[in-house]
């Protein structure tokens, strides 16, 4: 009934078996012959949530809340709970996710395993910075409660550990206080990449959240033009009526990608030219989760799916490196409506394989055009590795072993904590196992 694919729908790799635990005390089907991998809500883009020929553990049945302290904001919930459910129950009491990625349809376990980040990274760090503890079930049957104090090495390996250290059963998270559902959003246009750096430097000091849309087709003097959207939670309790519930559904997969050179050029022109109020009040849903309004938006790329690309380049070389990457993409004429630029802050995550680090991150998707797409991304990798940058595994389906190893200098520490019973298609690919 349910297809276990990743969000990019590329690559398509089938597991030999799918198990669906419903209770924290369920005994998991660990065997020596078949590797296991937890699969949450399938929002990782590439192959890090796939386990070809192995067993997938669909954790969505582990969707119970365990405890919520309304005075301290400490929430303990099973790993299959979705972030959207947390918002639904905690926001009425004035609590918000400390860090949220661009979709609310990820599981709590997945948010930890990928150490996801959001528009507030410059102040709040990544998701793992707000995790107090979790319980890990290892393939030898051990159940370990991990925190900075207990089983600290496993705690650090599991945050951003791509599900390879065991199965996360529950997570304890510290939420943040907010007054309500309203965001005060400022929109600022910039006509070139330098403008992004000027504006975001100021905006990051005054705003908890900031993210930029960038026109990935702009070239020459307009290279890197776009809009910066920065925001704070409003201090008032009044709630503008939330947008019509439901939104749209992409009902089917079109035979070819609807994102092509023509549609992209048209969209980017219109989006860049669109007048926007300098400041406005907005419900948190459209600010944080614009794409969640369209169910199955990933189908827009057609049956071949798409490749998401997210890199980070360190401070120092960041302007020239991002300029070079954007120039390379603009020449290719491909890319997506939603190309995103953001400056990460200095707050370090406990995670050994955590992706966010100081510097500038760029994320965008590319329709899968086979060898051409892969070649383009290899070219981009070269520009990233030249300055000592990194690629985000949660979004990757093709990076080389060398690129992976260069991206994660603490990989050897991670390997000692890995659970030999767990594996993924991603892991076998980048480790050449």
């Amino acid at each position: 009934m349910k297809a276990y694919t990743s969000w990019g729908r590329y690559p398509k790799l089938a597991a030999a078996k799918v198990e669906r635990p419903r209770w924290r005390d369920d005994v998991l089907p660990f065997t020596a012959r078949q590797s296991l991998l937890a699969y949450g809500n399938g929002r990782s883009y590439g192959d890090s949530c796939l386990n070809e020929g192995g067993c997938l553990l669909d954790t969505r049945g582990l969707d119970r809340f365990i405890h919520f302290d309304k005075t301290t904001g400490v929430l303990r919930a099973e790993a299959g709970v979705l972030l959207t459910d947390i918002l639904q129950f905690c926001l009425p009491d004035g609590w918000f996710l400390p860090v949220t990625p661009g979709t609310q349809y990820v599981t709590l376990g997945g948010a930890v395993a990928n150490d996801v980040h959001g528009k507030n990274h410059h102040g709040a760090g990544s998701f793992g910075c707000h995790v107090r503890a979790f319980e890990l079930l290892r393939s030898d049957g051990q159940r370990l409660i991990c925190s900075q104090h207990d089983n600290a090495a496993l705690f650090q390996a599991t945050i951003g550990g791509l599900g390879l250290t065991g199965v996360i059963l529950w997570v304890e998270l510290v939420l943040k206080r907010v007054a309500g559902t309203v965001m005060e959003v400022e929109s600022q246009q910039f006509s070139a990449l330098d403008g992004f750096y000027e504006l975001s430097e100021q905006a990051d000091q005054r705003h908890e959240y900031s993210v930029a849309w960038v026109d990935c087709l702009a070239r020459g003097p307009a290279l890197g033009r776009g809009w910066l959207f920065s925001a704070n939670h409003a201090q008032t309790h009044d709630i503008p009526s939330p947008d019509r519930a439901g939104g749209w559904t992409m009902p089917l997969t079109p035979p070819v990608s609807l994102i092509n050179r023509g549609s992209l050029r048209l969209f980017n022109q219109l989006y860049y030219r669109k007048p926007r109020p300098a400041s406005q009040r907005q419900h948190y849903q459209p600010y944080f989760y614009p794409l969640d309004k369209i169910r199955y938006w990933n189908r827009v790329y057609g049956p071949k799916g798409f490749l998401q690309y997210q890199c980070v380049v360190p401070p120092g070389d960041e302007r020239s490196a991002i300029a070079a990457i954007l120039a390379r993409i603009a020449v290719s004429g491909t890319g997506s409506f939603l190309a995103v630029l953001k400056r990460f802050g200095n707050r370090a995550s406990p995670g050994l394989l955590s992706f966010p680090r100081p510097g500038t991150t760029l994320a965008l998707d590319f329709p899968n055009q086979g060898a051409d797409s892969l070649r383009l991304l290899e070219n981009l990798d070269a520009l990233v590795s030249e300055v000592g940058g990194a690629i985000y595994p949660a979004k990757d389906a093709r990076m080389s072993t060398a690129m992976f190893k260069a991206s994660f200098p603490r990989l050897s520490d991670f390997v000692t904590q890995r659970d030999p019973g767990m594996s993924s298609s991603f892991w076998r690919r980048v480790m050449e196992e």
Partner: protein
Amino acid sequence: MQKILILGANSAIAQATARRYANEGAQFYLLGRNKERLEMVANDLQVRGAKEVDFHTLDANEVADHASALEAAIQSLGQIDILLIAHGTLPDQVACQASVDETVAALQTNAMSVIAFLTLASQQFEQQGQGSIVAISSVAGDRGRQSNYVYGSAKAAVSIFLQGLRNRLHRHGVQVLTVKPGFVDTPMTAAFDKGPLWVQPEKIAEGIHRAIDKNKDVVYLPRIWWLIMLVICRIPERIFKRLSL
């Protein structure tokens, strides 16, 4: 605020239904076999907004324990606005055919224990003069088929018992709701390949909540099953007996 008693509270349909009422601030008394899991469900409902959740272990097949369990529930809740009976098993038809014990056990769990609990609970509802009695029967109880007639006959017994109970309690202002789900993706049906007619327990929960609100008598969930069963029940027996269903 609704006061709700659930028998078989760890079942997938019961949990999904309870969550909807927890959102509304209901008070619960949960009965089920596994204490640790009852506690997990209770905590979940509590965080989701339940006013209060109490639970106790009960093996529905231990009919002698029903009276004290019901009494404790009434003690805790005061009165029962909604009783949901949701426990059950899906017996292996082939194994039942080869074993009297298996067949009797299946009937015991899916029919006798339900009828026994309803017998006691109906006295309480008659006395209260209000409330809703809700039990999960099945479309399988509408017509006997070779692939699962042991389960089907247990559910048929439950459906007919509920029908009589409804007739009896109607004048006392009590709703008796027979829920007939089709194919539901739960641990009970884990072994089946799932086709397009299968639905998630949340969908059934939504239908149960609506049927209680609308004071319905019998509800097929999803509603397409009303049509499917209408057709299936109209097939003449001399043709039906030749089909492999």
